[in-house]
């Protein structure tokens, strides 16, 4: 509670924020949210989003963020493919 977490949504978005609340359906409230967009053309870009309430059924993963490592990383130098949205069984 009240720790910074990293949340990955099913559409591939990566959001970091302070875990303020949750419920039985794992709907989650995050405050001081930052979205981190990755791209191959330039470094990762952070965007401030404020308070978010994400529906549980849209969440892929939530984990505690190591703020020390996060702050020490030069994300603007890191180029990476953005996460694709969740796909269901392609046979």
């Amino acid at each position, binding site marked *: 509670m009240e720790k910074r977490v990293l949340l990955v949504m099913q559409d591939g978005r990566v959001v970091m924020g302070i875990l303020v*609340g949750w*419920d039985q359906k794992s709907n989650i409230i995050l405050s001081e949210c930052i979205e981190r967009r990755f791209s191959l053309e330039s470094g990762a870009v952070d965007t401030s989003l404020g*308070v978010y309430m*994400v529906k549980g059924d849209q969440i892929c993963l939530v984990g505690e963020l190591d703020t020390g490592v996060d702050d020490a990383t030069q994300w603007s130098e890191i180029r990476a493919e953005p996460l694709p949205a969740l796909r269901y069984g392609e046979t």
Partner: protein
Amino acid sequence: MLPLSLLKAAQGKPMMVELKNGESFNGHLIDCDTFMNITLREVYQTSADSDRFWKLKEVYIRGSTIKYLQVQPALLDSVKEEQQRAREAGRSNAGGQRGGRGMNRGNARGRVRGGPGARGRGRGG
């Protein structure tokens, strides 16, 4: 803090809702329920590719189609304050009530056990 209490506190306040299909809605929250179905008023709708916009008087959004919603940061503080007030009020009320009920229950049980139990033993001896 429960997501639904935040949503309830956001009634009358502006918010942004993004749907699973990528469309987003900016407007004032009028009402919501436990399924997170919501109605918004004075809404600006944005298409998923965010190149088309619509102005709508009122919209109803089914809760299950919502991806996330964004509210004003100030709302968090007002909900926290409200919950703190409720906790304090609850503590001062429930404290007296709990004690009273406990005492009554204890007395009643004592009487029931004491009566027939004692008589039974008496006959047996």
